[in-house]
């Protein structure tokens, strides 16, 4: 046991495993690719354990997700909330705040957007105004849901991992109350459909002018998501606040000595983080489901955590990784048994977190 536990055996001092001071550029770029490939191999092992042919499963999944215009459109639909929520959690992670509550924040965002679309604004509100109000409400809903754990963390040092996670369950029950109670359509777990002016435009809506777009359901939300990723990329690269956040994440004590206000930043970051996840919820009800319903998210908020981590919190990488995972979801939807997509996500995260460490070390002769 101890031989496993101590990577550097002290008896034979000829070889040492140690942390490499720098990582070559090719390894930085290539390592996610290597790690995902490795994860797929491990996943293949587990799949054959469950009695399915991994090669067939993978080929089927890839074909469904990326094999046609429809596939790409479906994948884009699922990538949209992943990018938005992934950007959200990445903001918090950058400050080493573990916001595991994106799922709940997404539900609250969807809830607020639904309130605007169905109840709080007149039904004949012009579409741009309606969508803008829904987006703002969605952001606020998610932000409030992130603010609660943020305040508790900043003021009382309450562990944010558990509070954000618990608030997920609360948000889902909150949503259930409304779709089965006051906002329900005849007691089913869904609200009435939104008026057309509360729908984010989809590709298929332009089929009258461009017939080849017929049936493609990718919606306007992807443009917002990509634009926000670029904005965030700029913020991290070239603003003072972006720099502050990473300083706090790397070394809170140094940040305090440098005069950075920790309390304010924790609260702000958690609210922003939740707000983006809330926007993901708005984009989902307005662009895809067109109503609020029970379990409209297949765990986007949780997948977003893996996405953000795999992308190393880089906003542009989050777009790419979101597409990969969206493909996994599109493919996973169509194959049995259910749960394979979730399993593969877990395996990828595991391989990435451990592989990352392995790649950071080198073997050296002493």
């Amino acid at each position, binding site marked *: *046991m*101890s031989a*496993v*536990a*101590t*990577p*550097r055996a002290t008896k034979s001092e000829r070889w040492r495993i140690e942390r490499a001071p720098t990582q070559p550029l090719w390894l930085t770029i290539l390592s996610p690719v290597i790690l995902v490939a490795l994860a797929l191999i491990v996943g293949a092992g*587990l799949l054959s354990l*469950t009695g399915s042919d991994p090669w067939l499963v993978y080929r089927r999944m890839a074909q469904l997700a990326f094999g046609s215009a429809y596939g790409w459109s479906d994948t884009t639909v699922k990538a949209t909330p992943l990018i938005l929520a992934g950007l959200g959690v990445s903001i918090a992670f950058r400050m080493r705040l*573990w916001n*595991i509550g994106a799922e709940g924040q997404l539900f609250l965002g969807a809830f607020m957007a639904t309130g605007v679309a169905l109840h709080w604004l007149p039904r004949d509100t012009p579409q741009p105004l309606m969508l803008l109000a829904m987006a703002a409400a969605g952001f606020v809903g998610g932000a409030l849901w992130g603010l609660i754990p943020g305040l*508790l963390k900043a003021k*009382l*040092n*309450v*562990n944010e*991992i*558990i*509070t954000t*996670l*618990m*608030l997920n*369950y*609360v948000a889902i*029950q*909150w949503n*259930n*109350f409304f779709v*089965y*109670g*006051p906002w*329900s359509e005849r007691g089913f777990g869904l609200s009435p459909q939104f008026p057309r002016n509360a729908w984010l435009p989809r590709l298929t809506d332009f089929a009258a002018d461009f017939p080849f777009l017929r049936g493609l359901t990718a919606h306007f939300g992807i443009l917002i998501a990509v634009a926000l990723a670029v904005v965030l990329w700029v913020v991290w690269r070239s603003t003072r606040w972006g720099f502050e956040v990473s300083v706090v994440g790397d070394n809170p004590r140094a940040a305090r000595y440098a005069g950075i206000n920790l309390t304010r930043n924790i609260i702000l970051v958690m609210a922003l983080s939740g707000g983006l996840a809330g926007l993901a919820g708005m984009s989902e009800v307005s662009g895809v489901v067109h109503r609020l319903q029970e379990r409209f998210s297949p765990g986007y908020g*949780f997948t977003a*955590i*893996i996405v953000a*981590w795999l992308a190393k919190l880089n906003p542009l990488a989050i777009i790419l990784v979101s597409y990969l995972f969206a493909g996994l979801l599109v493919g996973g939807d169509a194959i049995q*048994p*259910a*749960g*394979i*997509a*979730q*399993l*593969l*996500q*877990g*395996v990828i*995260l*595991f391989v990435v*977190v*451990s592989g*990352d*460490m*392995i790649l950071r070390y080198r073997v050296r002769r002493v």
Partner: protein
Amino acid sequence: MEWVLLVNLLASGVRSGTAILFASIGEIFAERSGVLNLGVEGMMLMGAMTAFGVAHNTGNPWLGLLAAAGVGTVLALLHAFVTVTLRADQVVSGLALTFVGSGLSAVLGAPLVEIRQAPRLPTYPIPLLADLPVLGPILFNHNVIVYLGFLLIPAAWFYIYRTRPGLELRAVGEYPAAADVQGINVFALRYAYVMVGGFLAGVGGAALSLAITPLWIEGMTSGQGWIAVGLVIFARWNPVQAAVGSYLFGAIRRLPLDLQTLPLFLRNPAWGYFLNMLPYLFTVIVLVIGSREAMRRRAGAPAALGLPYVREERGA
């Protein structure tokens, strides 16, 4: 009349809190050694699924319990390897473990969902004690797994606070460098206690599927693994306080079922969803209380919790 209701509530609280009890005491062992394992939910799910499947296929619930403990241990070993040997981030590895556990249990357990009945662990009223008024039904008329939980509480407490290995466990979690100097094998102990945590989380899962809600449904823990992790903080890493918390949570989990029959909720069934929030809201409240206490008494988490131990580097 109210007495009967209260006694019933407490009795079912003790029963349904048992799963959280095993999981949270397991997590106390892991965290005391300095390793945070957020994979409890995943290990419990795998434990529940394995226990149910093995009990169904062999006809022996005890084999199911054993298998669940084994599966939990193996999953925890994975976490130990990634965090202790590879020194990867404990939070991320734990999250990954939960994803893997939830996904794998859903995939492997898919055929088990159809099965309504599997052999359960036996219920055994303790002679004489079970006939006591009030205390009898609350404490002494239960499933065997509940009694095992009773035994675990003082045993864990005694081990941690009153034995030599318990002292070493705490040393490894508080100040691993000092423990290392004393000749304690920090790496081996961390491996061992993370695995103890997995073992107990597996048993907690088995308690669910073999006794408390004897069937298998995908995601049947519904956050109990996370509640267990939260309870550890509230309990300030003390098994006795964790037990109190677990049984309280068991009662709160049962509360919605009992309150649903009140006229108010019969008239507005959707309000029941607010009742379902109770255990989760309560976890948040309990965490706030725990954190305030920790700040006031300056007695918080094990000092080295979450930090990988590296021999050549300075500091804890």
